[in-house]
Every structure is written in structure tokens, then in C-alpha cells.
């Protein structure tokens, strides 16, 4: 975790992955968790607009302090993984997370 609220109680069933924030904004049903390789403050803003509840940065990437503080302001927990996007998604899917279609298999 890069940052989490003290009272974090979050249940996530649906995820999405994108480096293009335009793609995140055009999803009609948004995921609750966003996995992305982008680390700028627009990721936080985009997440805020579409009600994404948590963000995971992949490939060991870290956002700067200003981006983290914006996430704090908005109450959006931030996670980081060394895994690349495909493997991070695959592992979550194997544990039962779905995408916007509601199913993976």
C-alpha cells in the first residue's frame, strides 16, 4: 500500500485496467479497482469522476507526492505492485475478480 485511509473497509468485486484515461472515462460500468501504468494526478482525477474506489500502480511505478496527496484528499487508497499489467490482472482474476461484463470465464 502506498496510502490507505485509517478506517479502510473496502470490498472489491470488479476491476479494470487501462493506461488510457480516455478508456476509463468511456466505460459505461466502471470497475471499483483500476490497474494502471500511468502515475500522474489525472489518474486520481479520472478515478474520482467515475467512482473508482482504489488504484493499483503496476510495474513498480510510483506517483509523486502531489499525486499521493490528491488521492488522500479524495479518500482513494493507492497500491503498488512490481508485476506487469497482464500478470497483476491475471492474478486478481484467478482470485475471482471480474471485469465490467460481470464474468471472466
Amino acid at each position: 500500500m502506498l496510502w490507505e485511509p485509517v478506517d479502510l473497509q473496502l470490498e472489491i468485486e470488479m476491476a479494470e485496467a487501462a493506461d488510457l484515461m480516455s478508456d476509463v472515462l468511456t466505460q459505461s460500468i466502471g470497475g471499483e479497482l483500476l490497474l494502471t501504468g500511468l502515475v500522474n494526478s489525472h489518474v486520481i482525477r479520472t478515478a474520482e469522476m467515475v467512482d473508482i474506489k482504489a488504484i493499483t500502480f503496476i510495474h513498480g511505478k510510483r506517483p509523486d507526492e502531489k499525486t499521493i496527496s490528491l488521492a488522500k484528499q479524495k479518500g482513494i487508497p493507492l497500491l503498488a505492485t512490481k508485476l506487469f499489467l497482464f500478470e497483476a490482472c491475471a492474478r486478481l482474476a484467478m482470485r475471482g475478480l471480474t471485469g465490467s461484463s460481470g464474468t471472466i470465464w
Partner: protein
Amino acid sequence: MDKRALEWDYEIEGKDFRNAGKVSSKVKEILKELGFDPDFVRKVAIASYEAEMNVVCHAEKGRLHFAILPAVLKIVVEDRGPGIPDIDLAMQEGYSTAPPEIREMGFGAGMGLPNMKKNTDELNIVSTVGEGTVVEMVIRPPLSREGSG
């Protein structure tokens, strides 16, 4: 029904990427506080954010006017900027004039205007090349609120 319209005006600075999204964030907070349906709030926030990003990415400066009217919600975004020479072309998914630095931030995929259309009930664009663009969006709440019927 209260006939009084609730209205807000915000300035948007062109190329101010650090603050891009602030205005739409305020719009979303206001609607959430007023208790609007979350899916409706999300649609409005997306449309507003796309319009705001367009001003930040392409224009010198702009203004977002946001009004809650008895039956609809209206957002008008005006900017002083290069204008859109061919609106039909700009409405096509994937068409973009965004420079590389905007694409690096995850935008400029040519989805902004089509996405604004998708999330609104009415979208009107008037643009003068070399002067600027006015985007007007009307969004209807899913159910008319009590007394507005």
C-alpha cells in the same frame, strides 16, 4: 417546486494540467451533496471532466457555467482558443488533434466529444476558428424529482 435556479461559474486555465479536473470535482461534490442519483452524478462528472480537459488541453482559458434547473441540468463551457474547424470530424471516435504531451497523460485519444455526447441528453457545439468554442450540455436526471413533474 422551487423556481430558483442554482448556478455556479468556474474559471478554467488553459495548459494548467496540475489543476485540471478541479472544476468537475466541484460539480460532482455539489451534485453528491444535493443527493442526486449516483449514476446520474457519474454521467455529469464524466461529461464535465471531458469538457474541462478539452479547455485545458486546447484553449487559452475558459469558463464553466453549471446550472441546476427545475427539470434538467445544464453545463456550458466556453473557451477562448483555436476553435474546432470541422465539428463533424471532431465528433468521430479516434479523431484527435492533441499533441504528444497530452497523450502521455492518458488523454487525447479522440474520445472526448463522443463521450460527452454519450453521457448527455443534448450536446450543442458552436465554434469559431481562431476565437473559441462553446459547448452546451443538457442532462436530465433519471427521475424527475418530487414536485417537478
